[in-house]
């Protein structure tokens, strides 16, 4: 859980001591003027006690040179049935700092979601976040499949958790992707357990981006060796991840795989910015 020590030391502790050399290397790889775009972070409260405020998120972005961040709720204990409360928190963050945040709303496919979906779209949310592990559903659950269709119809990108504790990603997702080629999908954590299979299966689906937060460099190396870097975008997963170590993993793996400097800049900024200019 987020402790007082964490809050106090927050940013400095991530870039000092043995991390100073790591952070200096990261900064050297990103030329001045390039605004990093973080495609995965949370604002709100989680059942595990972790929290992140809009101000805390903005402080971390400013300290690390991150220009914009996609933000959405955590697995909030106050989600009730429709996630409206946590979605309100994210919307308030966006209203406070519209130039910093790209707000996504979150839903639970097991609950009645039509009203909150409609309210969020009308409000101006820019995408939907779904978490199959926290909300305990499969990606081919008919209620989730229906949500994917609704998002495609509304032109909303969907970011799905496809990382820790995921047992099935490609096989249950493929029919939905083939049925909705216009659906823009961000695979959170790059479908890390099935990264090679996902790279192969989704190679010819240009509306699918692989997002790198808290993915190990060895998994990212395999991804960069298997897929055009133009299909990959950077993420931090704050408050579970952090900007320095996730940028290091992404940049170091890309460099090891021979990704060009231009492509590296696109994956930390341009690739996701195409969807949110």
């Amino acid at each position, binding site marked *: 859980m987020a*402790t007082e*020590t*964490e809050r106090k*030391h*927050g940013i400095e*502790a*991530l870039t000092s*001591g*043995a*991390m100073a*050399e*790591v952070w200096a290397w990261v900064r050297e790889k990103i030329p001045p003027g390039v605004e990093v775009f973080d495609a995965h972070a949370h604002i709100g409260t989680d059942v595990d006690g972790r929290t992140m405020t809009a101000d805390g998120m903005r402080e971390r972005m400013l300290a690390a040179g991150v220009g914009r961040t996609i933000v959405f709720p955590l697995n909030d204990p106050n989600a009730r049935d429709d996630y409206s409360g946590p979605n309100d928190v994210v919307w308030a963050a966006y209203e406070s700092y519209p130039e910093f945040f790209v707000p996504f709303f979150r839903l639970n496919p097991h609950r009645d979601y039509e009203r909150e979906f409609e309210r969020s779209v009308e409000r101006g949310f820019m995408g939907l976040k779904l978490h199959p592990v926290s909300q305990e559903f499969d990606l081919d659950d008919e209620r989730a499949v229906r949500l994917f269709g609704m998002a495609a119809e509304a032109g909303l990108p969907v970011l799905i958790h496809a990382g*820790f504790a995921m047992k099935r990603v490609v096989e249950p997702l493929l029919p939905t992707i083939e049925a909705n080629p216009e659906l823009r999908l961000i695979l959170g954590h790059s479908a890390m357990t099935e990264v090679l299979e996902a790279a192969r299966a989704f190679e010819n689906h240009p509306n699918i981006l692989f997002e790198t937060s*808290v993915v*190990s*460099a*060895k998994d990212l*190396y395999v991804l960069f060796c298997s897929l055009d870097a133009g299909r990959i975008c950077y993420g931090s997963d704050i*408050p579970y991840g*952090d900007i*320095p*170590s*996730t940028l*290091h*993993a992404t940049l*170091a*793996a890309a460099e*090891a795989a021979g990704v060009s400097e231009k492509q590296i800049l696109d994956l930390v900024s341009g690739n996701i910015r195409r969807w949110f200019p």
Partner: protein
Amino acid sequence: MGHLLRITGYLEIAIICMWIHNPRALATIGMVEASLRGEGPDGKDEDLLKRLRALVEEARDYYAGDDFPAAMARMRVAQDLVDLRIVAIGRG
């Protein structure tokens, strides 16, 4: 390379224990520190091992001090450095 494979194995154990808040997480960080003691078999990775020792030592202190993000960042970076070194050796 075998030496580095040992180290990344212990790092994996410790990172998972930290991630799931296992009560033995601090002990598993100690196992990583143990795996890093002494010179490597061929002496070629001493610069890397020196960086790893510093990262893991700080990670242990931050974890003991209840600063999870600062600890986890260092453990992730340590494992990434080892793994990419193994990849580089494998590529020749």
